[in-house]
């Protein structure tokens, strides 16, 4: 004898499927927790190590530079410290999943989309932007410090700056579009909440 499958029957088919009865012992879980902590520590270390290198390198050598280059090194250090502060403030090294564990699925999706949107939209202002003044000063200072090596130093600086500015502009435009797409998806989720 055979019966046609109805949606409610499918629920029964679903719930009666063979499962593997996977369990983790508490010892296995604790071992995984230790591994997880090590991974977080390594990620934190990686994020701050690059900043530490910038600060230590320019801090240790800036005394040897001419005044303009010294100002550039100072700006690089300030930019690095600012980025470090922002990384700390924004908690980029925190564990998102742990923070959002009790959130409803919709809230979780929404916050994840918001995080991605803010990342593409604001990364310039706090992650890349703070290093630009130092880099720009450094290009100018390097050009002025070696006038013999570069005949048309200002033309070089202008062309270099124009290329960098164009690249920044194009990336910023792509980021804005990505942010708009993400915002549309956030709006869709908000509409579902009713």
């Amino acid at each position: 004898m055979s019966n046609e499958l109805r949606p409610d029957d499918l629920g029964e088919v679903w719930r009666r499927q063979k499962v593997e009865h996977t369990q983790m012992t508490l010892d296995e879980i604790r071992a995984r927790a230790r591994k997880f902590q090590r991974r977080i520590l390594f990620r934190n270390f990686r994020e701050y190590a690059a900043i530490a290198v910038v600060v230590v390198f320019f801090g240790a050598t800036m005394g040897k530079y001419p005044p303009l280059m010294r100002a550039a090194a100072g700006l690089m250090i300030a930019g690095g410290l600012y980025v470090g502060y922002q990384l700390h403030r924004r908690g980029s090294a925190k564990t998102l999943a742990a923070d959002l564990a009790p959130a409803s699925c919709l809230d979780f999706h929404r916050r994840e989309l918001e995080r991605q949107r803010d990342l593409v939209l604001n990364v310039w202002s706090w992650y890349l932007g703070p290093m630009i003044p130092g880099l720009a000063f450094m290009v100018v200072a390097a050009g002025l410090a070696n006038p013999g090596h570069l005949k048309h130093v200002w033309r070089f600086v202008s062309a270099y700056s124009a290329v960098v500015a164009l690249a920044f502009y194009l990336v910023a435009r792509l980021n804005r579009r990505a942010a708009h797409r993400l915002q549309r998806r956030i709006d869709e989720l908000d509409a579902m909440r009713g």
Partner: protein
Amino acid sequence: MAAESSQDDLYRQAAAGFGDALDRLARAYEADADTRRDLLQEIHFALWRSFGGFDGRCSLRTWVYRVAHNAAASHVIRQRRANAAVLVGLEEIEAAPDPNDGPLAAGRREALERLLALIRQLKPLDLQIIFSYLEGLDAASIGEITGLSPGNVATKIHRIKTILTRQFHAGGSHVE
């Protein structure tokens, strides 16, 4: 020490009560057996960690499903980035032409495989609703877990029933 013990107890309780449902949840999200095992361990670990902050604001079942879905959805998002897979919504599946041409001589096992194939192509939120429906949860519980309004849950469930009926009924699907 007491907090740790409570965390362990809650995890034990959740694993005992919902272990099989979590297995099915991992199957809904991940087709590859090895990756699925990893995902399931990730879900169990996320659960244990989350119980460090369990405050009883919602039922244990709602908590377990929320944490499990959020962990699994993160997994899907990571996989999608790696594989550039395109996920669709229930609306798109409902509007698409019926992929099953001709009668389907489906036993339970085949029906299950097709069901899984259908579920795995869904966006996380739609997947979470269809999973909860198949697990036998009522609309209010699905709303609590997903955060969707009751009206939206009702609409989605209606859509799910239409899709399931079309996919498993029109072709002459049978249970042996």
